[in-house]
Protein backbone atom coordinates (compact mmCIF):
# COMPACT_ATOMS: atom_id res chain seq x y z
CA UNK A 1 0.00 0.00 0.00
CA UNK A 2 1.49 3.36 -1.03
CA UNK A 3 1.88 5.67 1.96
CA UNK A 4 -0.03 8.91 2.08
CA UNK A 5 0.39 12.12 4.05
CA UNK A 6 -2.43 14.30 5.31
CA UNK A 7 -2.07 17.43 3.12
CA UNK A 8 -3.74 19.64 5.73
CA UNK A 9 -1.58 18.34 8.56
CA UNK A 10 1.55 18.61 6.43
CA UNK A 11 0.83 22.28 5.81
CA UNK A 12 0.93 22.85 9.58
CA UNK A 13 4.63 22.47 10.27
CA UNK A 14 4.31 23.46 13.91
CA UNK A 15 7.53 23.43 15.90
CA UNK A 16 7.93 21.76 19.29
CA UNK A 17 8.00 25.11 21.12
CA UNK A 18 4.51 26.05 19.87
CA UNK A 19 3.19 22.55 20.59
CA UNK A 20 4.68 22.62 24.10
CA UNK A 21 3.13 26.06 24.67
CA UNK A 22 -0.31 24.58 23.91
CA UNK A 23 0.02 22.59 27.14
CA UNK A 24 0.99 25.74 29.05
CA UNK A 25 -2.11 27.49 27.65
CA UNK A 26 -4.33 24.55 28.56
CA UNK A 27 -3.03 24.35 32.12
CA UNK A 28 -3.45 28.12 32.51
CA UNK A 29 -7.09 27.81 31.43
CA UNK A 30 -7.59 24.94 33.87
CA UNK A 31 -5.86 26.93 36.61
CA UNK A 32 -8.30 29.81 36.06
CA UNK A 33 -11.28 27.44 36.18
CA UNK A 34 -10.03 25.83 39.41
CA UNK A 35 -9.17 29.17 41.08
CA UNK A 36 -10.91 28.16 44.33
CA UNK A 37 -8.55 25.19 44.71
CA UNK A 38 -5.61 27.45 43.93
CA UNK A 39 -6.74 29.69 46.76
CA UNK A 40 -6.97 26.67 49.07
CA UNK A 41 -3.40 25.62 48.25
CA UNK A 42 -2.18 29.19 48.71
CA UNK A 43 -3.77 29.42 52.17
CA UNK A 44 -2.40 25.98 53.03
CA UNK A 45 1.07 27.06 51.86
CA UNK A 46 0.99 30.25 53.91
CA UNK A 47 -0.27 28.50 57.05
CA UNK A 48 2.30 25.73 56.66
CA UNK A 49 5.11 28.27 56.24
CA UNK A 50 4.01 30.27 59.28
CA UNK A 51 3.38 27.23 61.48
CA UNK A 52 6.81 25.76 60.84
CA UNK A 53 8.76 29.02 60.96
CA UNK A 54 7.20 30.01 64.31
CA UNK A 55 9.03 27.02 65.81
CA UNK A 56 12.18 29.15 65.54
CA UNK A 57 10.55 31.90 67.62
CA UNK A 58 9.62 29.30 70.24
CA UNK A 59 13.25 28.19 70.35
CA UNK A 60 14.30 31.81 71.02
CA UNK A 61 11.63 32.40 73.70
CA UNK A 62 12.49 29.18 75.49
CA UNK A 63 16.10 30.33 75.65
CA UNK A 64 17.35 27.37 73.64
CA UNK A 65 19.06 29.72 71.16
CA UNK A 66 20.22 33.32 71.20
CA UNK A 67 18.71 36.07 69.06
CA UNK A 68 21.38 35.73 66.35
CA UNK A 69 21.00 31.96 66.08
CA UNK A 70 17.22 32.30 66.23
CA UNK A 71 17.28 34.69 63.29
CA UNK A 72 19.32 32.16 61.31
CA UNK A 73 16.89 29.42 62.36
CA UNK A 74 13.93 31.56 61.20
CA UNK A 75 15.63 31.98 57.83
CA UNK A 76 16.57 28.29 57.72
CA UNK A 77 12.97 27.18 58.28
CA UNK A 78 11.42 29.96 56.19
CA UNK A 79 13.61 29.06 53.22
CA UNK A 80 12.97 25.36 53.77
CA UNK A 81 9.21 25.79 53.69
CA UNK A 82 9.31 28.17 50.72
CA UNK A 83 11.65 25.99 48.69
CA UNK A 84 9.52 22.95 49.53
CA UNK A 85 6.36 24.88 48.50
CA UNK A 86 8.08 25.56 45.17
CA UNK A 87 9.46 22.05 44.67
CA UNK A 88 6.23 20.30 45.66
CA UNK A 89 4.21 22.54 43.32
CA UNK A 90 6.54 21.66 40.41
CA UNK A 91 6.49 17.96 41.34
CA UNK A 92 2.68 17.94 41.68
CA UNK A 93 2.06 19.68 38.37
CA UNK A 94 4.33 17.35 36.44
CA UNK A 95 3.92 14.07 38.26
CA UNK A 96 0.11 14.27 38.30
CA UNK A 97 -0.23 15.04 34.59
CA UNK A 98 -1.27 11.48 33.72
CA UNK A 99 -3.48 11.12 36.78
CA UNK A 100 -5.11 14.46 36.00
CA UNK A 101 -5.86 13.55 32.39
CA UNK A 102 -7.15 10.14 33.44
CA UNK A 103 -9.50 11.80 35.91
CA UNK A 104 -10.75 14.24 33.29
CA UNK A 105 -11.00 11.40 30.76
CA UNK A 106 -8.93 13.14 28.09
CA UNK A 107 -5.82 10.99 28.18
CA UNK A 108 -6.57 8.97 25.05
CA UNK A 109 -7.31 12.06 23.00
CA UNK A 110 -4.12 13.75 24.18
CA UNK A 111 -1.94 10.69 23.62
CA UNK A 112 -3.26 10.05 20.10
CA UNK A 113 -2.46 13.60 18.97
CA UNK A 114 0.66 13.96 16.79
CA UNK A 115 2.70 15.44 19.65
CA UNK A 116 5.95 13.76 20.74
CA UNK A 117 5.78 12.65 24.37
CA UNK A 118 8.82 14.74 25.31
CA UNK A 119 7.10 17.88 23.97
CA UNK A 120 4.08 17.08 26.15
CA UNK A 121 6.37 16.73 29.19
CA UNK A 122 8.36 19.88 28.45
CA UNK A 123 5.10 21.85 28.13
CA UNK A 124 3.89 20.53 31.47
CA UNK A 125 7.28 21.26 33.07
CA UNK A 126 7.29 24.86 31.85
CA UNK A 127 3.81 25.38 33.26
CA UNK A 128 4.80 23.67 36.51
CA UNK A 129 7.78 25.97 37.01
CA UNK A 130 5.82 29.16 36.16
CA UNK A 131 2.91 28.10 38.36
CA UNK A 132 5.23 27.26 41.27
CA UNK A 133 7.08 30.59 40.98
CA UNK A 134 3.80 32.55 41.21
CA UNK A 135 2.49 30.54 44.16
CA UNK A 136 5.79 30.62 46.09
CA UNK A 137 6.26 34.37 45.60
CA UNK A 138 2.74 34.94 46.94
CA UNK A 139 3.44 32.76 49.99
CA UNK A 140 6.73 34.60 50.53
CA UNK A 141 5.06 38.03 50.26
CA UNK A 142 2.30 37.09 52.73
CA UNK A 143 4.56 35.28 55.25
CA UNK A 144 7.44 37.74 55.32
CA UNK A 145 5.78 40.49 57.44
CA UNK A 146 5.33 37.96 60.26
CA UNK A 147 9.08 37.69 60.83
CA UNK A 148 11.69 40.41 61.20
CA UNK A 149 14.40 38.64 59.24
CA UNK A 150 17.68 40.06 58.07
CA UNK A 151 18.39 39.62 54.36
CA UNK A 152 21.33 42.01 54.32
CA UNK A 153 23.80 39.22 53.51
CA UNK A 154 21.68 37.56 50.86
CA UNK A 155 23.09 37.06 47.36
CA UNK A 156 19.86 37.00 45.35
CA UNK A 157 21.59 36.40 42.03
CA UNK A 158 23.16 33.19 43.34
CA UNK A 159 19.78 32.13 44.79
CA UNK A 160 18.07 32.64 41.43
CA UNK A 161 20.87 30.69 39.70
CA UNK A 162 20.39 27.75 42.10
CA UNK A 163 16.61 27.74 41.55
CA UNK A 164 16.95 28.01 37.78
CA UNK A 165 19.47 25.16 37.45
CA UNK A 166 17.74 23.10 40.14
CA UNK A 167 14.31 23.43 38.51
CA UNK A 168 15.47 21.32 35.55
CA UNK A 169 16.41 18.41 37.80
CA UNK A 170 13.21 18.76 39.84
CA UNK A 171 11.20 18.74 36.61
CA UNK A 172 13.06 15.54 35.70
CA UNK A 173 12.16 14.01 39.04
CA UNK A 174 8.54 15.04 38.41
CA UNK A 175 8.62 13.32 35.02
CA UNK A 176 10.02 10.18 36.61
CA UNK A 177 7.18 10.21 39.15
CA UNK A 178 4.69 11.13 36.42
CA UNK A 179 5.56 8.07 34.37
CA UNK A 180 4.72 5.74 37.26
CA UNK A 181 0.92 5.94 36.71
CA UNK A 182 1.47 4.81 33.13
CA UNK A 183 3.80 1.97 34.02
CA UNK A 184 1.60 0.87 36.89
CA UNK A 185 -1.97 1.99 36.09
CA UNK A 186 -3.45 0.74 39.37
CA UNK A 187 -0.89 1.98 41.91
CA UNK A 188 1.24 4.48 40.02
CA UNK A 189 -0.40 7.58 41.47
CA UNK A 190 0.15 6.39 45.01
CA UNK A 191 3.76 5.59 44.12
CA UNK A 192 4.34 9.11 42.78
CA UNK A 193 3.11 10.58 46.10
CA UNK A 194 5.52 8.27 47.91
CA UNK A 195 8.41 9.54 45.78
CA UNK A 196 7.51 13.08 46.88
CA UNK A 197 7.29 12.04 50.54
CA UNK A 198 10.72 10.39 50.43
CA UNK A 199 12.24 13.50 48.82
CA UNK A 200 10.79 15.56 51.70
CA UNK A 201 12.38 13.24 54.26
CA UNK A 202 15.87 12.93 52.82
CA UNK A 203 16.51 16.41 51.41
CA UNK A 204 16.89 18.44 54.60
CA UNK A 205 13.84 20.64 54.12
CA UNK A 206 13.28 21.40 57.83
CA UNK A 207 16.64 20.20 59.22
CA UNK A 208 20.10 19.65 57.88
CA UNK A 209 20.73 16.22 56.40
CA UNK A 210 23.52 15.67 58.95
CA UNK A 211 20.90 14.84 61.61
CA UNK A 212 19.65 11.88 59.54
CA UNK A 213 20.84 8.32 60.21
CA UNK A 214 23.84 7.40 58.06
CA UNK A 215 21.94 5.29 55.56
CA UNK A 216 19.40 8.07 54.99
CA UNK A 217 22.23 10.57 54.53
CA UNK A 218 23.53 8.41 51.69
CA UNK A 219 20.09 8.59 50.04
CA UNK A 220 20.07 12.37 50.46
CA UNK A 221 22.99 12.63 47.99
CA UNK A 222 20.66 11.24 45.29
CA UNK A 223 18.04 13.95 45.78
CA UNK A 224 18.48 17.15 43.77
CA UNK A 225 16.38 18.93 46.41
CA UNK A 226 19.26 18.46 48.91
CA UNK A 227 21.57 20.57 46.71
CA UNK A 228 18.87 23.14 45.92
CA UNK A 229 18.21 23.71 49.63
CA UNK A 230 21.95 23.80 50.39
CA UNK A 231 22.54 26.32 47.63
CA UNK A 232 19.61 28.55 48.53
CA UNK A 233 20.53 28.61 52.22
CA UNK A 234 24.15 29.29 51.32
CA UNK A 235 23.13 32.20 49.09
CA UNK A 236 20.55 33.78 51.42
CA UNK A 237 21.88 33.05 54.93
CA UNK A 238 25.63 32.92 54.31
CA UNK A 239 25.69 35.32 51.36
CA UNK A 240 27.62 32.88 49.15
CA UNK A 241 27.94 34.05 45.55
CA UNK A 242 27.72 32.09 42.33
CA UNK A 243 31.46 31.32 42.51
CA UNK A 244 31.24 29.87 46.00
CA UNK A 245 28.25 27.79 44.95
CA UNK A 246 29.92 26.52 41.77
CA UNK A 247 30.16 22.95 43.06
CA UNK A 248 26.47 22.87 44.03
CA UNK A 249 25.48 24.37 40.68
CA UNK A 250 27.65 21.84 38.84
CA UNK A 251 26.00 18.92 40.68
CA UNK A 252 22.54 20.33 39.93
CA UNK A 253 23.51 20.79 36.27
CA UNK A 254 24.66 17.16 36.20
CA UNK A 255 21.31 16.06 37.65
CA UNK A 256 19.58 18.19 35.00
CA UNK A 257 21.66 16.66 32.21
CA UNK A 258 20.81 13.16 33.45
CA UNK A 259 17.12 13.98 33.63
CA UNK A 260 17.22 15.48 30.15
CA UNK A 261 17.93 12.01 28.84
CA UNK A 262 14.30 11.12 29.21
CA UNK A 263 13.54 10.17 25.57
CA UNK A 264 14.37 6.56 26.41
CA UNK A 265 12.08 6.83 29.41
CA UNK A 266 9.39 8.28 27.19
CA UNK A 267 9.64 5.39 24.75
CA UNK A 268 9.05 3.06 27.70
CA UNK A 269 6.16 5.31 28.68
CA UNK A 270 4.76 4.96 25.17
CA UNK A 271 4.96 1.20 25.22
CA UNK A 272 3.57 1.00 28.72
CA UNK A 273 0.73 3.33 27.87
CA UNK A 274 -0.23 1.26 24.88
CA UNK A 275 -0.22 -2.12 26.50
CA UNK A 276 -2.74 -1.42 29.21
CA UNK A 277 -6.46 -1.46 28.54
CA UNK A 278 -8.02 1.92 28.62
CA UNK A 279 -4.78 3.77 29.10
Amino acid at each position, binding site marked *: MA*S*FTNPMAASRSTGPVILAWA*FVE*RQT*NLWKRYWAWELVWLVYGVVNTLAITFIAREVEQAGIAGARDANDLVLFLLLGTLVWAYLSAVLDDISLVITWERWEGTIEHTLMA*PVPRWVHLVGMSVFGVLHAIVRTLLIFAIALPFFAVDFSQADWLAAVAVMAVGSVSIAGLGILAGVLPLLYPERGTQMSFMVQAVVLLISGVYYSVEVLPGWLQILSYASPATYILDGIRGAIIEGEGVGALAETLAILALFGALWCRFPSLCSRWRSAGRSAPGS
Partner: protein
Amino acid sequence: MEQQALKVTNVSKYFGGGFDYRKLVSWCLPVTASRPAVAHVLRDVSFEVRRGEVFGLIGANGSGKSTLVRVLSTLLLPDSGSVEVFGHDVVKASGSVRALINRVSADPSFFRNMSSYENLLFFGRIYGLSPGEIRVLVPEVLRRLGFKEEMASEPMNHLSRGQQQKVAVARSFLTSPVMMLLDEPTTGLDPRSRRDVQRFIRDVQRDHDVTILLTTHDMEEAEILCDRISFIAGGRIVASGTPLELRERVARGRPVEEIDMEDVFMELTGHDLEEDEAPAEMAAHG
Protein backbone atom coordinates in the same frame (compact mmCIF):
# COMPACT_ATOMS: atom_id res chain seq x y z
CA MET B 1 -6.92 3.57 -9.11
CA GLU B 2 -8.73 2.74 -5.87
CA GLN B 3 -6.55 3.40 -2.85
CA GLN B 4 -6.62 1.41 0.37
CA ALA B 5 -7.08 3.62 3.40
CA LEU B 6 -6.91 0.95 6.07
CA LYS B 7 -5.51 -2.54 6.03
CA VAL B 8 -5.96 -4.70 9.12
CA THR B 9 -4.19 -8.06 8.86
CA ASN B 10 -4.61 -10.89 11.38
CA VAL B 11 -4.70 -8.60 14.38
CA SER B 12 -4.96 -10.24 17.78
CA LYS B 13 -4.99 -8.57 21.15
CA TYR B 14 -5.19 -9.98 24.63
CA PHE B 15 -4.98 -8.48 28.08
CA GLY B 16 -3.22 -9.97 31.06
CA GLY B 17 -0.79 -12.86 31.08
CA GLY B 18 2.41 -10.90 31.85
CA PHE B 19 4.83 -11.63 34.66
CA ASP B 20 2.84 -12.48 37.77
CA TYR B 21 4.64 -10.60 40.57
CA ARG B 22 2.11 -12.06 43.02
CA LYS B 23 3.92 -15.39 42.83
CA LEU B 24 6.89 -13.72 44.55
CA VAL B 25 4.81 -12.83 47.59
CA SER B 26 2.30 -15.65 47.42
CA TRP B 27 3.03 -16.55 51.07
CA CYS B 28 1.34 -13.35 52.27
CA LEU B 29 -1.57 -13.27 49.86
CA PRO B 30 -4.99 -14.81 50.48
CA VAL B 31 -5.55 -18.14 48.79
CA THR B 32 -8.07 -16.57 46.41
CA ALA B 33 -5.63 -13.99 45.07
CA SER B 34 -4.99 -15.65 41.73
CA ARG B 35 -4.13 -13.77 38.58
CA PRO B 36 -7.05 -13.18 36.19
CA ALA B 37 -7.03 -15.34 33.07
CA VAL B 38 -5.71 -14.05 29.77
CA ALA B 39 -8.54 -12.28 27.95
CA HIS B 40 -8.48 -12.58 24.15
CA VAL B 41 -10.23 -9.46 22.95
CA LEU B 42 -9.34 -9.62 19.25
CA ARG B 43 -8.66 -12.81 17.31
CA ASP B 44 -7.12 -12.72 13.84
CA VAL B 45 -9.10 -9.72 12.71
CA SER B 46 -8.59 -8.82 9.05
CA PHE B 47 -10.38 -6.36 6.77
CA GLU B 48 -9.65 -3.52 4.40
CA VAL B 49 -11.27 -0.14 3.95
CA ARG B 50 -11.07 1.79 0.70
CA ARG B 51 -10.32 5.49 0.56
CA GLY B 52 -13.48 7.60 0.85
CA GLU B 53 -15.54 4.66 2.14
CA VAL B 54 -17.71 4.55 5.27
CA PHE B 55 -17.04 1.17 6.82
CA GLY B 56 -19.19 -0.09 9.67
CA LEU B 57 -18.05 -2.45 12.40
CA ILE B 58 -21.10 -3.82 14.14
CA GLY B 59 -21.03 -5.77 17.35
CA ALA B 60 -22.54 -6.05 20.80
CA ASN B 61 -20.92 -4.44 23.83
CA GLY B 62 -17.74 -6.34 24.70
CA SER B 63 -17.23 -7.74 21.21
CA GLY B 64 -13.85 -6.00 20.70
CA LYS B 65 -14.89 -2.94 18.65
CA SER B 66 -13.43 -0.30 20.94
CA THR B 67 -10.22 -2.27 21.48
CA LEU B 68 -9.76 -2.42 17.72
CA VAL B 69 -10.35 1.35 17.49
CA ARG B 70 -7.70 1.86 20.20
CA VAL B 71 -5.24 -0.23 18.21
CA LEU B 72 -5.98 1.84 15.08
CA SER B 73 -5.57 5.01 17.18
CA THR B 74 -2.01 3.93 18.19
CA LEU B 75 -3.12 3.74 21.83
CA LEU B 76 -2.75 -0.03 22.11
CA LEU B 77 -0.16 -2.31 20.53
CA PRO B 78 -1.49 -5.35 18.68
CA ASP B 79 -0.05 -8.58 20.06
CA SER B 80 0.14 -10.01 16.56
CA GLY B 81 -0.75 -8.96 13.05
CA SER B 82 -0.40 -5.54 11.48
CA VAL B 83 -2.41 -2.41 10.81
CA GLU B 84 -1.62 0.10 8.07
CA VAL B 85 -3.32 3.47 7.76
CA PHE B 86 -2.67 4.89 4.30
CA GLY B 87 0.46 2.76 4.12
CA HIS B 88 1.80 3.75 7.54
CA ASP B 89 2.21 1.02 10.12
CA VAL B 90 0.49 1.95 13.40
CA VAL B 91 3.39 0.57 15.45
CA LYS B 92 6.45 1.54 13.41
CA ALA B 93 5.15 4.89 12.15
CA SER B 94 2.70 5.88 14.88
CA GLY B 95 3.57 9.58 14.52
CA SER B 96 2.62 9.59 10.82
CA VAL B 97 -0.60 7.71 11.59
CA ARG B 98 -1.59 10.20 14.29
CA ALA B 99 -1.37 13.05 11.79
CA LEU B 100 -3.89 11.23 9.58
CA ILE B 101 -6.53 10.16 12.05
CA ASN B 102 -8.92 11.46 14.66
CA ARG B 103 -11.56 9.81 16.75
CA VAL B 104 -14.95 10.29 18.35
CA SER B 105 -15.83 7.94 21.17
CA ALA B 106 -19.10 7.29 22.99
CA ASP B 107 -17.74 9.19 25.99
CA PRO B 108 -17.08 12.82 24.93
CA SER B 109 -13.96 13.04 27.21
CA PHE B 110 -13.23 16.72 27.80
CA PHE B 111 -11.73 18.92 30.48
CA ARG B 112 -15.04 19.33 32.25
CA ASN B 113 -14.46 22.71 33.82
CA MET B 114 -13.07 24.27 30.67
CA SER B 115 -15.41 25.72 28.07
CA SER B 116 -15.99 23.99 24.76
CA TYR B 117 -14.01 26.76 23.07
CA GLU B 118 -11.05 26.31 25.45
CA ASN B 119 -11.14 22.55 24.87
CA LEU B 120 -11.27 22.97 21.11
CA LEU B 121 -8.48 25.55 21.30
CA PHE B 122 -6.24 23.06 23.08
CA PHE B 123 -7.01 20.08 20.85
CA GLY B 124 -6.69 22.24 17.72
CA ARG B 125 -3.33 23.57 18.95
CA ILE B 126 -1.83 20.13 19.53
CA TYR B 127 -2.78 19.22 15.95
CA GLY B 128 -0.87 22.28 14.76
CA LEU B 129 -3.70 24.75 14.15
CA SER B 130 -2.97 28.38 15.00
CA PRO B 131 -5.28 30.28 17.39
CA GLY B 132 -6.39 32.39 14.40
CA GLU B 133 -7.40 29.31 12.39
CA ILE B 134 -9.24 27.88 15.39
CA ARG B 135 -11.16 31.12 15.94
CA VAL B 136 -12.40 30.91 12.34
CA LEU B 137 -13.06 27.15 12.20
CA VAL B 138 -14.74 26.54 15.56
CA PRO B 139 -17.91 28.64 15.03
CA GLU B 140 -18.27 27.22 11.51
CA VAL B 141 -18.02 23.56 12.58
CA LEU B 142 -20.24 24.07 15.65
CA ARG B 143 -22.89 25.83 13.55
CA ARG B 144 -22.99 22.92 11.09
CA LEU B 145 -23.59 20.59 14.02
CA GLY B 146 -26.49 22.67 15.29
CA PHE B 147 -24.58 23.79 18.39
CA LYS B 148 -25.55 27.23 19.69
CA GLU B 149 -22.52 29.50 19.47
CA GLU B 150 -23.29 31.34 22.71
CA MET B 151 -22.82 28.02 24.56
CA ALA B 152 -19.18 27.84 23.45
CA SER B 153 -17.96 29.78 26.49
CA GLU B 154 -19.91 27.62 28.98
CA PRO B 155 -17.96 24.99 30.95
CA MET B 156 -18.44 21.54 29.43
CA ASN B 157 -20.12 20.21 32.55
CA HIS B 158 -22.93 22.75 32.05
CA LEU B 159 -23.77 21.25 28.64
CA SER B 160 -26.15 18.40 27.93
CA ARG B 161 -24.84 15.01 26.81
CA GLY B 162 -25.92 15.75 23.22
CA GLN B 163 -24.17 19.12 23.19
CA GLN B 164 -21.00 17.59 24.61
CA GLN B 165 -21.03 14.93 21.92
CA LYS B 166 -21.43 17.58 19.23
CA VAL B 167 -18.33 19.32 20.59
CA ALA B 168 -16.55 15.94 20.50
CA VAL B 169 -17.47 15.54 16.83
CA ALA B 170 -16.33 19.14 16.18
CA ARG B 171 -13.00 18.39 17.92
CA SER B 172 -12.33 15.51 15.58
CA PHE B 173 -13.29 17.15 12.31
CA LEU B 174 -11.60 20.46 13.25
CA THR B 175 -8.21 18.94 12.52
CA SER B 176 -9.10 17.79 8.96
CA PRO B 177 -8.30 14.11 9.45
CA VAL B 178 -8.28 11.88 6.38
CA MET B 179 -9.45 8.95 8.47
CA MET B 180 -12.11 9.26 11.14
CA LEU B 181 -12.63 6.58 13.76
CA LEU B 182 -16.17 6.98 15.03
CA ASP B 183 -16.58 4.72 18.03
CA GLU B 184 -20.30 4.69 18.81
CA PRO B 185 -20.57 8.46 18.21
CA THR B 186 -24.32 8.67 18.75
CA THR B 187 -24.73 6.34 21.73
CA GLY B 188 -26.91 7.94 24.38
CA LEU B 189 -27.98 10.90 22.24
CA ASP B 190 -31.55 12.09 21.88
CA PRO B 191 -33.10 11.54 18.39
CA ARG B 192 -32.55 15.13 17.27
CA SER B 193 -28.89 15.26 18.33
CA ARG B 194 -28.39 11.86 16.71
CA ARG B 195 -29.80 13.16 13.42
CA ASP B 196 -27.62 16.31 13.63
CA VAL B 197 -24.48 14.24 14.14
CA GLN B 198 -25.40 11.72 11.41
CA ARG B 199 -26.16 14.51 8.93
CA PHE B 200 -22.85 16.21 9.73
CA ILE B 201 -20.94 12.94 9.22
CA ARG B 202 -22.65 12.37 5.86
CA ASP B 203 -21.98 15.97 4.73
CA VAL B 204 -18.31 15.85 5.69
CA GLN B 205 -17.82 12.47 4.07
CA ARG B 206 -19.50 13.71 0.88
CA ASP B 207 -17.70 17.08 0.70
CA HIS B 208 -14.24 16.08 1.92
CA ASP B 209 -11.81 13.29 1.26
CA VAL B 210 -12.51 11.45 4.52
CA THR B 211 -12.53 7.72 5.12
CA ILE B 212 -14.69 6.69 8.05
CA LEU B 213 -14.62 3.63 10.27
CA LEU B 214 -17.84 3.59 12.28
CA THR B 215 -18.44 1.22 15.17
CA THR B 216 -21.98 0.98 16.42
CA HIS B 217 -24.66 -1.36 17.62
CA ASP B 218 -27.35 0.77 16.02
CA MET B 219 -28.34 -1.10 12.85
CA GLU B 220 -30.38 1.78 11.47
CA GLU B 221 -27.40 4.11 11.78
CA ALA B 222 -25.13 1.55 10.14
CA GLU B 223 -27.48 1.19 7.19
CA ILE B 224 -27.86 4.96 6.77
CA LEU B 225 -24.15 5.75 6.91
CA CYS B 226 -22.14 2.72 5.83
CA ASP B 227 -21.07 1.52 2.38
CA ARG B 228 -19.91 -1.82 3.77
CA ILE B 229 -20.33 -3.55 7.10
CA SER B 230 -18.49 -6.19 9.10
CA PHE B 231 -20.04 -8.02 12.03
CA ILE B 232 -17.74 -8.69 14.96
CA ALA B 233 -18.47 -11.18 17.74
CA GLY B 234 -16.13 -12.62 20.36
CA GLY B 235 -13.25 -10.63 18.89
CA ARG B 236 -13.65 -12.19 15.42
CA ILE B 237 -14.99 -10.78 12.17
CA VAL B 238 -17.79 -13.20 11.31
CA ALA B 239 -19.32 -11.62 8.19
CA SER B 240 -18.61 -8.73 5.82
CA GLY B 241 -20.32 -7.10 2.88
CA THR B 242 -22.71 -4.37 1.81
CA PRO B 243 -25.98 -4.24 3.76
CA LEU B 244 -27.68 -5.80 0.72
CA GLU B 245 -25.13 -8.62 0.44
CA LEU B 246 -25.51 -9.44 4.12
CA ARG B 247 -29.28 -9.57 3.79
CA GLU B 248 -29.03 -11.83 0.74
CA ARG B 249 -26.85 -14.19 2.72
CA VAL B 250 -29.69 -15.03 5.08
CA ALA B 251 -32.63 -14.43 2.70
CA ARG B 252 -33.14 -18.04 1.58
CA GLY B 253 -35.79 -17.01 -0.94
CA ARG B 254 -37.40 -14.23 1.08
CA PRO B 255 -37.49 -10.66 -0.35
CA VAL B 256 -34.37 -8.93 1.07
CA GLU B 257 -36.21 -5.69 1.85
CA GLU B 258 -38.34 -7.60 4.36
CA ILE B 259 -35.35 -8.82 6.33
CA ASP B 260 -34.45 -6.81 9.39
CA MET B 261 -30.70 -6.15 9.79
CA GLU B 262 -30.84 -7.10 13.46
CA ASP B 263 -32.10 -10.53 12.39
CA VAL B 264 -29.23 -10.71 9.90
CA PHE B 265 -26.80 -9.91 12.71
CA MET B 266 -28.29 -12.53 15.03
CA GLU B 267 -28.30 -15.18 12.37
CA LEU B 268 -24.72 -14.55 11.24
CA THR B 269 -23.16 -14.04 14.67
CA GLY B 270 -25.34 -16.11 16.95
CA HIS B 271 -25.53 -13.10 19.29
CA ASP B 272 -28.23 -10.58 20.14
CA LEU B 273 -27.04 -6.98 19.66
CA GLU B 274 -28.78 -5.87 22.83
CA GLU B 275 -27.02 -8.47 24.94
CA ASP B 276 -23.59 -7.63 26.28
CA GLU B 277 -20.96 -10.17 25.44
CA ALA B 278 -18.63 -11.25 28.22
CA PRO B 279 -16.00 -8.47 28.53
CA ALA B 280 -13.61 -10.70 26.69
CA GLU B 281 -13.34 -14.35 25.99
CA MET B 282 -11.21 -16.04 28.57
CA ALA B 283 -8.63 -18.23 27.00
CA ALA B 284 -8.62 -21.82 28.05
CA HIS B 285 -4.93 -21.57 28.87
CA GLY B 286 -5.31 -18.39 30.93
